[in-house]
């Protein structure tokens, strides 16, 4: 017989009601704080583990045999054209296949380089290296996988066209054309993409690994390169293009790790690959880009093409040893340095906690729209057991919430269609189309809010008329905003948690942006306060975020929009559809919610 049994029924009921209505919302804020702290703690040393090579078949090969000979590989070119809603691009890819002596032609590795480097100058060293390695590999008898060399044209569309054609997805339609490949090999197991601009030496090597839609290569791919770069061909390796000085200071270390992790999350959330390696990932091929960093005054030992060649040769020997696709190590990870990873088990909880915070808040509001508040009132007034009915006497009015949400999703889908369709009207730009969508969305908000206010007035006047002969408790249904907010919060939880399975960083970014406004905002009887809340929600709406990004990177808003649109049309990233069809509708519904009548 515990404490609970000594309480009267009224007290128990009161406790439960208080818990649902008062404590659950507070608890949800606590959970948000926990989630924030957890996310910030992730880069810390004690949360991440040292990476280790998981695949036993990978054993870094030995030195480079520098015997040069005639290349004599089977080579060919491929033309392609790609038309987007704003422009048209075409180019020529060059590729060659080395048929390995011990291979049956069923498996292959790829070594590729784009013509133009990340630094927007010619990728001279990388291409030279490919030619040189072609000669070297031709002399090797130990390869059991074919090796394909690709030099791709254009930004990313060149390699994309080549990969499409390689996997038999080439077709000619009005908006794209990929020439069929004449030289082929087997299934591609792994790929390395080289980005070594210019003709000089380098200080360090950066690894880019984030692919389309935040897809990541198997961690063993990165592990292999870092192991080789630590031993056989000593090169300083870092993540991305940022070099971090070594320090013993814990705080500085933490800040550096945090920066690295934020960089990774930024790239992952945007869903645009950080290099051509990202395109391979779409075809289940593990790939990374190696990037030559040349930073004046950096203390590490400089390296030249020779050492780089030995590094890549060793990497290919290792990959050559693979018996199957890389699968042992992690596919879901966060990196705070080349040697430190945080696995999914540690980084998922904050997102789930965030989802739980949304859900708790929604449940509390769901309780608020039931009989619970009335029961509590009854207990407070006469200290008697309020009768717990088998059902709620107040009915929930779902009509407004359902209509608003449906219209919001339709408006979101319509803006997406508008942005991605070319109408052939002279002078049409993405920015103009976006403005049109903003117009449609604001019309939606206006009509929903005004009709709700009119309905509210009518109901009120009816009630005053009926009030004369009505007696006892009033059983007016809960206010519309409560029901709408419940739905918005529940949907937000749904979006954040399900999206985190696909693209963790995007889910976290969306969650962190919306969690506080969506949870805390509610209509106020002070018009100014409601207006302020609506203004904040407009600021975090897609156009608002676009303006913010534009001013942050000091770009033109049209440029930001074009970049997002290009990502969708050229690479098939999901940022635009996610923003238009999921994020914007929720945001619109939230704006409608704060502008609804208070009660």
């Amino acid at each position, binding site marked *: 017989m515990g404490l609970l049994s000594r309480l009267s029924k009224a007290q128990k009921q009161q406790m439960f009601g208080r818990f649902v209505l008062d404590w659950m919302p507070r608890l949800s804020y606590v959970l948000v704080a926990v989630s924030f702290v957890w996310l910030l703690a992730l880069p810390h040393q004690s949360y991440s583990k040292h990476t280790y090579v998981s695949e036993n078949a990978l054993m870094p090969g030995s030195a480079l045999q520098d015997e040069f000979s005639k290349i004599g590989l089977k080579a060919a070119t491929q033309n392609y054209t790609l038309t987007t809603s704003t422009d048209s691009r075409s180019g020529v890819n060059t590729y060659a296949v080395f048929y390995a002596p011990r291979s049956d032609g069923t498996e292959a590795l790829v070594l590729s380089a784009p013509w133009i480097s990340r630094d927007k100058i010619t990728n001279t060293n990388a291409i030279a290296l490919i030619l040189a390695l072609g000669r070297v590999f031709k002399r090797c008898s130990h390869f059991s996988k074919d090796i394909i060399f690709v030099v791709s044209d254009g930004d990313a569309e060149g390699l994309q066209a080549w990969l499409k054609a390689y996997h038999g997805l080439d077709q000619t339609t009005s908006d794209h054309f990929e020439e069929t490949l004449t030289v082929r090999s087997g299934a591609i197991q792994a790929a390395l993409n080289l980005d070594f601009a210019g003709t000089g030496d380098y200080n360090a090597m950066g690894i880019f690994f984030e692919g389309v839609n935040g*897809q*990541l290569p198997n961690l063993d791919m990165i592990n292999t390169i870092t192991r080789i770069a630590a031993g056989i061909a000593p090169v300083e390796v870092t993540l991305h293009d940022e070099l971090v000085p070594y320090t013993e200071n814990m705080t500085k270390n933490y800040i550096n790790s945090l920066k690295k992790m934020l960089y990774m999350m930024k790239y992952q959330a945007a869903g645009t690959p950080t290099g051509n390696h990202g395109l391979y*990932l779409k075809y*289940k091929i593990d790939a990374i880009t190696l990037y030559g960093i040349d930073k004046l005054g950096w203390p590490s030992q400089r390296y030249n093409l020779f050492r780089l060649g030995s590094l890549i040769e060793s990497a290919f020997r290792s990959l050559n040893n693979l018996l199957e*696709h890389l*699968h042992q190590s992690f*596919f*879901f990870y966060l990196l705070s340095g080349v040697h430190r990873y945080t696995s999914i088990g540690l980084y998922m909880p904050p997102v789930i906690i965030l989802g739980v915070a949304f*859900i708790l808040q*929604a*449940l509390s509001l*769901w309780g608020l729209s039931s009989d619970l508040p009335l029961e509590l009132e009854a207990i407070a007034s006469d200290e008697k*057991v309020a*009768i*717990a*009915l*088998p*059902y*709620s*006497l107040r*009915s929930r009015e779902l009509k407004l919430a359902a209509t608003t949400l449906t219209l919001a999703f339709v408006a979101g889908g319509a803006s997406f269609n508008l942005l991605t369709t070319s109408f052939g009207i002279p002078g049409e730009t993405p920015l103009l189309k976006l403005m049109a969508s903003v117009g449609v969305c604001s019309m939606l908000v206006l009509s929903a809010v005004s009709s709700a206010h009119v309905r509210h007035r009518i109901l009120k006047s009816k009630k005053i008329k009926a009030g004369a002969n009505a007696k006892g408790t009033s*059983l007016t249904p809960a206010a519309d905003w409560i029901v709408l907010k419940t739905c918005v919060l*529940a949907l937000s939880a*749904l979006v954040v*948690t*399900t999206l985190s*399975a*696909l693209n963790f960083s995007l889910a976290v970014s969306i969650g962190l942006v919306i969690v506080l406004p969506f949870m805390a905002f509610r209509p106020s009887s002070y018009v100014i306060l409601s207006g302020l809340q609506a203004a904040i929600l407009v600021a975090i709406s897609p156009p608002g975020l676009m303006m913010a990004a534009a001013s942050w990177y000091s770009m033109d808003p049209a440029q930001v929009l074009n970049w997002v649109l290009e990502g969708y049309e050229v690479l098939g990233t999901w940022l635009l559809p996610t923003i238009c069809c999921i994020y914007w509708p929720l945001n619109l519904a939230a704006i409608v919610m704060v502008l609804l009548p208070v009660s």
Partner: protein
Amino acid sequence: MSGSTSVATPASIFTAAFALRLALFHLPALASTLADQVEISTPITSFKRLSEGVFLFRNGVPPYDGGVFHQVCAKGHARADRAFSGAKTDRLFNLLLSKAPLLLGLFYPILSSPLLVNLLYILGDLAIGYMLLQITAIKDQDSAHAKKIRQYGGQLESPGMDGVTVAALYLFNPFTIASCLGRSTILYSNLAVVAGIWMGMKRNQNLAMFNIALATYLSLYPAMLTIPVWLMLNREAGGYSVQKKTAAQSASVFLLSLGSLFLLSFVLVDSWDFFVSVYGTILTVSDLTPNLGLFWYFFIEMFDQFRPFFLVVFQIHVFTFAIPISIKLRKYPLFVSFLLCTIMGSFKGYPSVGDASLYLGLLPLSSEIFKYMRYSFLIVNLFLYSSLLAPIFWYLWVYVGSGNANFFYAIGLVYGIGEIILMIDTTFAVSRRDFELLSPVEEVSADGTKPDWDRKVIQK
């Protein structure tokens, strides 16, 4: 339609549903994507496999010979069909036109025209919507005579949803639309089930039993719906002897219809192979293509020597509920048919969202129980999460390769939990309302307080 506040008329609802489906069918990428989703097309209901069968049939190859319907052909059936659409009329064609109960026969003449096929699917959905409308009307007539429940506010219980809302909830259910666009053949089984229920409510014994037999013929499990339909036929019926007589009649009509359907099929394809091919696959779960159900993962892991035992256990489990539920809830045959459809949709070997569209369509027919439900928020969320996560995890498993089969099966389990909580909660709600019916609220005494003995019993 009692006290309808809805502005929508049946005509507008049906026109909108028709137009929406037609428009969505015109986005070819959407329809073909949906048709490839494992949540929509199971080996039993896949339209692709049906086309395959029709194609073989048309070319004189026995379609049920050697497990044709279990071989997935990746692509090319549409192209092949186009090439053969002008094929000569042969002997079978004449037979099919006059008496074709089989789906194969149904699609034989129209498969070459995508428009006709799409129209057939759309009309099937609309027909189900129309029948739900009619069933609601009959139910409203019934409840007009029934005893009213006095509520805790003093007013009488408000009537349930009107027919238009019920039909709209079916027609605009995303599961229904997805299943229709994916051209899952579960639609025809659903159609027969709803027709059987409608006829049962109309007390048309022969047609009711024929339709249930048709549904049984198409997907086997609806056989257990004979019991609730018999209950419908006998509501307010006289004595024991009358009931016994109708039971015998119903059973014989059912068996006779089923027998003649089998015979017709034999005449059509000229062999009994289809028996093993269709019902064998349903019962032995021999095709382990993943789906939303609970069977495939279990039987992939199973050692062969245990397989028959667990197979029998799993299949009996589906059927065990029919009789106890029908006895306990015999006053609510509509609800019993909903519950049995949910059980079928959850526990059968090859469930798809088409099954969910059926039971979610039948649920609003018992809308008076909604306010007694306690977990509606949870149930809605479980369905939302599983229907979003299932394709995502499938993508991670099959396309990206970073996930694995466990991911997808876990979501199948979540979906199953959603269905089970739905069954539990609705059954609780029906029983609770029954309790209210038996122990009405006592009149308010002079000082305005109400006795609360009845609540203490239930609320513990």
